[in-house]
């Protein structure tokens, strides 16, 4: 069960107020029933046929044959096409905009700027993070007289074809008056810095703090105070499918339908209703096939509001906009971008007594949905898998003339883990200890474990995962071989990270939006089963996992189960897929709904079979049949009876459908240990990865094949951050990594072979025992790789380098070290 942080004093404050933000508040869970009264999946289905097995995905046949439909693949009759004119300036006043020529161009239906749209569509919204005095600027869907980042939408062309719309964009003439731009978040805090938003006093959007334990005491008792500045650079999520929106408004039916590439159709529906001032009942959001998200589609975007508004203007003709890759890189949310100043109070035996972390988060020009919330997660997770007695994060969220940051795979936790795992290695280096021993020394060992930042870790066995990883990697042997290589003058390094992350977002009281998830399971008269889930998979394979769960609960084949998601028109309600929550929260909702359908089917079967009361209490499913005593009915027959309505048991109603809203009692805290070996080329600074080993613990595995897939993909993204990726803006705010020619998404040749294993430490937060695995690889890998590179460079006296560890940076560090006396 989830616990509070106990008696330790924990405070989280905004700048001026002591009121704790909602997302951070967490007390004993009341929502979930005690474990003793709960039916756990493995009690109900002791020998599952599908759950836990490496089942092939149901999604795949359509995807490997090109028959799936992403937004761009949808074609509606009479569809119009939208292209958007975007700001080439980081900061400028729009002096004038001439659109007549564009309006008259062949195939153009209309050209729209702020003044034509503003009455139809309000500002881009944010989920209120509960941070007092949060400054939120005006954020229109088309620029209102001023542009604040390169790529900000300024006008939209609607035309008969995409080619015509694109041609017309070139005919719009905008006169901009360039204004001074501010790009560096630290410079943005200077009193004389140019202001991103003239209506605000300065560029500070918010301050926030979380602390616990006695820091003064910790720093007094420490043998040494280690200081380090650590940066988590700005990243571009780069889902392979760019964003895209189709919107259609049917005037007669008063119905707006929006097809969009999103992770959160239901939240989007609620927000669009607010932006467009339409009753929610008149808005339907559909996420068709979604080609990757990684947090970048966990948002409400200007274009979603804009297209909806345009759809009303050209009703009933549908309008379609498909983002180009350049637009995607400039105007879809970025990730990370934090600078942390660290002070670490450490003892000579490797014990860390306390950590102070002063963080500046570059949030870009505006607030998107979770912009302010993401860096607070870094503060909350600052303790990592260790029992630091005291920790404090102060956070400043700063406006700059760049694309807003928001969730990107891991969202706040990779930053925290990177900091902590660098700390562990800094401490090891400082006292000349083995990094493994420093970690062992500090591990949290008693669960539930209360962190100084107020979280309660459900379960964990960090040492077990570490030991298994050490064995898998042959750590001892590897260190011995490293010593030999060093003697030969080679720069070989071994790095590790032992992470814990916060997952399965989460209890509602810990979330800015709801933390629950819904599911409906319904059985048709012919016995086919539909699962409607509020989660919205975009590659995770929930169609398969939820079918595994449902088929096992109902004793049927997976083929009989169709999982539907992504359409607010048929899924009753939902929150979405993000934060490694889909299986732990959404899967549990499916389990609970299926369980309720099963109970009812048992009753219907008993009634239809004329079973005695004693037999009725012991109806069993075996080989796809419901058995009461020696008589049986097939699954389909029971389904038919439930709909036929003649043998409905007393107290029941006809039909076969259950909807369940699952509210978890706590977050879950998956963990693991990643080890990486690298060799650095002394002459070129190139890093080559010689081996990678990972042991992750995501609780009970639902489908090991899919877990491996999630871990591999996560590691690739973490490796991208460690070695290659960085969104580079020049000092005037131009995005220099504006295409995939300059922004390096890892390729097949960049990846080493990944040796992955698991430990299994179930959680009792949900009846599946599942913790979540979507972000684990990303969180674990970045510090393991960076630690390995720094370890390789240790003989040269190098203690830290900022990411990405591109060859030139490493080469310069080597050169500088060589030149040092």
């Amino acid at each position, binding site marked *: 069960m989830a616990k509070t942080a106990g008696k330790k004093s924990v405070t989280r404050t905004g700048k001026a107020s002591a009121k704790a933000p909602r997302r951070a508040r967490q007390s004993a869970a009341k929502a979930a029933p005690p474990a003793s009264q709960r039916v756990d999946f493995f009690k109900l289905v002791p020998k599952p046929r599908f759950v836990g097995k490496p089942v092939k995905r149901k999604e795949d046949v359509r995807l490997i044959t090109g028959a799936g439909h992403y937004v761009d693949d949808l074609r509606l009759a009479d569809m119009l096409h939208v292209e958007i004119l975007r700001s*080439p*300036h*980081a900061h400028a006043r729009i002096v004038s905009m001439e659109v007549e020529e564009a309006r008259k161009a062949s195939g153009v239906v209309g050209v729209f700027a702020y003044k034509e749209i503003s009455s139809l569509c309000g500002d881009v919204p944010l989920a209120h993070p509960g941070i007092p005095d949060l400054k939120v600027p005006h954020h229109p869907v088309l620029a209102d007289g001023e542009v604040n980042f*390169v790529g900000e939408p300024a006008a939209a062309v609607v035309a008969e074809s995409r080619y015509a719309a694109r041609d017309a964009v*070139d005919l719009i003439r905008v006169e901009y008056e*360039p204004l001074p731009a501010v790009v560096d978040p630290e410079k943005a805090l200077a009193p004389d810095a140019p202001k991103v938003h003239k209506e605000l006093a300065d560029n500070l959007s918010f301050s926030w703090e979380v602390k616990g334990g006695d820091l003064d005491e910790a720093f007094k008792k420490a043998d040494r105070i280690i200081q380090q500045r650590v940066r988590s650079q700005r990243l571009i999520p780069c889902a392979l499918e760019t964003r895209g929106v189709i919107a259609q408004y049917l005037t007669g039916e008063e119905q707006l339908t929006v097809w969009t590439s999103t992770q959160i159709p239901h939240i989007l529906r609620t927000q669009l209703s607010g932006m467009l001032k339409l009753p929610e009942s008149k808005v339907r959001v559909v996420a068709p096939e979604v080609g990757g998200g990684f947090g970048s589609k966990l948002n409400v975007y200007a274009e979603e509001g804009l297209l909806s508004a345009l759809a009303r203007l050209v009703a009933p003709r549908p309008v379609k906009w498909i983002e180009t890759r*350049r637009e995607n*890189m*400039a105007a879809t949310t970025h990730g990370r971008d934090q600078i942390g100043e660290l002070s670490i109070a450490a003892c000579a035996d490797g014990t860390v007594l306390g950590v102070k972390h002063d963080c500046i988060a570059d949030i870009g020009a505006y607030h998107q949905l979770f912009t302010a919330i993401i860096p607070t997660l870094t503060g909350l997770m600052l303790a990592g898998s260790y029992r630091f007695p005291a920790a404090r994060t102060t956070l400043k969220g700063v406006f700059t003339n760049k694309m807003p940051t928001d969730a990107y795979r891991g969202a706040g936790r990779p930053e925290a883990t990177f900091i902590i795992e660098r700390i562990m290695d800094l401490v090891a280096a400082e006292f000349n200890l083995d990094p493994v021993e420093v970690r062992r020394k500090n591990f949290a060992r008693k669960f539930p474990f209360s962190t100084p930042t107020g979280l309660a870790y459900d379960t964990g066995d960090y040492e077990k995962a570490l030991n298994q990883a050490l064995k898998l990697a042959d750590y001892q042997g590897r260190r011995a071989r490293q010593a030999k290589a060093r003697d030969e003058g080679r720069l070989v390094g071994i790095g590790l990270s032992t992470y814990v992350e916060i997952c399965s977002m989460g209890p509602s009281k810990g979330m800015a939006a709801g933390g629950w998830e819904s599911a409906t399971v319904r059985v048709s008269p012919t016995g086919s089963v539909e699962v409607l889930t509020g989660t919205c998979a975009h590659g995770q394979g929930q169609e398969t996992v939820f079918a595994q769960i449902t088929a096992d609960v109902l004793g049927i084949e997976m083929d009989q189960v169709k999982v539907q998601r992504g359409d607010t028109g048929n899924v009753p309600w939902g929150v979405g897929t993000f934060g490694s929550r889909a299986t732990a929260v959404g899967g549990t909702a499916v389990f609970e709904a299926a369980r309720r359908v099963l109970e009812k089917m048992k009753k219907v079967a008993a009634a239809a079979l004329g079973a005695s009361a004693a037999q009725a209490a012991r109806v069993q499913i075996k080989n796809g049949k419901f058995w009461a005593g020696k008589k049986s009915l097939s699954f389909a027959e029971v389904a038919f009876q439930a709909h036929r309505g003649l043998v409905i048991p007393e107290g029941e109603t006809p039909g076969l459908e259950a909807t369940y809203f699952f509210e978890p009692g706590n977050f879950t805290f998956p963990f693991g240990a990643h080890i990486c070996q690298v060799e650095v080329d002394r002459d070129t600074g190139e890093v080559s990865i010689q081996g990678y080993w990972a042991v992750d613990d995501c609780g009970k595995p639902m489908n090991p094949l899919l877990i491996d897939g999630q871990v591999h993909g996560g590691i690739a993204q973490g490796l991208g951050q460690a070695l290659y990726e960085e969104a580079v803006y*020049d*000092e*005037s705010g*131009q*995005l*220099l990594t*504006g*295409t995939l*020619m*300059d922004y390096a998404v890892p390729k097949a040749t960049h990846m080493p072979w990944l040796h992955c294993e698991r430990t299994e430490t179930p959680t009792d937060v949900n009846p599946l025992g599942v913790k979540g695995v979507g972000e684990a690889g990303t969180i674990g890998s970045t510090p393991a790789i960076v630690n390995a590179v720094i370890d390789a460079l240790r003989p040269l006296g190098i203690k830290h380098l900022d990411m990405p560890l591109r060859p030139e940076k490493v080469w310069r560090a080597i050169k500088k070290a060589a030149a040092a006396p």
Partner: protein
Amino acid sequence: MIEFKGSHIISRSRQELWPILQDPAVLKRCIPGCEELVLNGEHLYDVRLKVGFGMIKGSFQGTVQLTNMVEPERYVLNIKAEGRTGFAHGTTRIQLLPHPSPAATEIRFESHLQVGGMIASVGARLCQGAARMLAEQFFRELEKCLRN
């Protein structure tokens, strides 16, 4: 941001060179790709350019203004050019230094150009080289001009 500097020896004295460098006809000939250059205010010229490197071509429209003029020593060129593929704004400080040989001048220039739009987001790696080539082209043409 493109920053580059260089110098060039021109076989004319500073006094001779000074008016030449403000002559619209000369400027039009020497500025690479210049299709139109019209005086439109004090030391202010409206310009239309077609700049190209191989197949990569862009049309730009803008202004060139000379400020901080200290005859015959130095001035600042303020450049603003915009086109479909992006824009370039910036300044070039120009110094005319006496050369040991009396009939020659050393022109030193130092440019700070802010490039934006498509050319910055896809062509950043080539901008520095492009700017340098344009400067070289300018002086090459200027010399040709002076020879005739």
